[in-house]
């Protein structure tokens, strides 16, 4: 498998808390994508971080990438109920046309 064990998990937090999801991968990648999937819908890209970037921000989202440890994280600041979703990381394992997805982290944010 391309993925480390910590990629499969579920998190439950209260609204307003910060949360971090981790993703570790075993094969070199040129990029890490983070997608979110809402119930009943297809995944949607939220952040793309390239191998020459260490951090990328988008609103309340922050992604990091450590190529030496082959790991990435996605943080959400002051989570809201609408952040409830499944979050996936995905890598290319060096193959231009392919994207391999992790098993996902199910995040539940309650009021």
């Amino acid at each position, binding site marked *: 498998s391309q993925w480390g064990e910590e990629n499969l998990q579920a998190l439950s937090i209260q609204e307003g808390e910060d949360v971090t999801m981790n993703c570790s991968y075993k094969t070199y990648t040129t990029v890490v994508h983070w997608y979110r999937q809402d119930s009943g819908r297809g995944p949607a890209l939220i952040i793309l971080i390239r191998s020459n970037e260490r951090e990328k921000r988008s609103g309340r989202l922050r992604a990091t990438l450590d190529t030496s440890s082959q790991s990435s994280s996605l943080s959400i600041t002051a989570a809201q109920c609408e952040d409830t979703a499944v979050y996936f990381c995905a890598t290319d394992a060096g193959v231009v046309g392919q994207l391999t997805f*992790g098993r996902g982290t199910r995040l539940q944010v309650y009021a």
Partner: protein
Amino acid sequence: EAAVTQSPRNKVTVTGGNVTLSCRQTNSHNYMYWYRQDTGHGLRLIHYSYGAGNLQIGDVPDGYKATRTTQEDFFLLLELASPSQTSLYFCASSDGGASQNTLYFGAGTRLSVL
């Protein structure tokens, strides 16, 4: 917003049956993909294509054929469906290879093989 349309949305067939899942994108993207999603596995790539007439094998191709008839249309074929192919199938497209570009997903087709 990129548009990827899958049909049907739900399908039930019997073991040994013949099933075709359809996908159309209207964004002039050259790459199209078929993934399956199963609990505990995330999304797994079945086949993908970078243009009409082209087909590339993904990570879990066994039991599946695919055909890209036009730039817009990508089909997934299960010629002898088995219960192990019961899954949620997603089609996606991207403008350029998946590595450096956004994948736009359809709403999915839920397939049950009895």
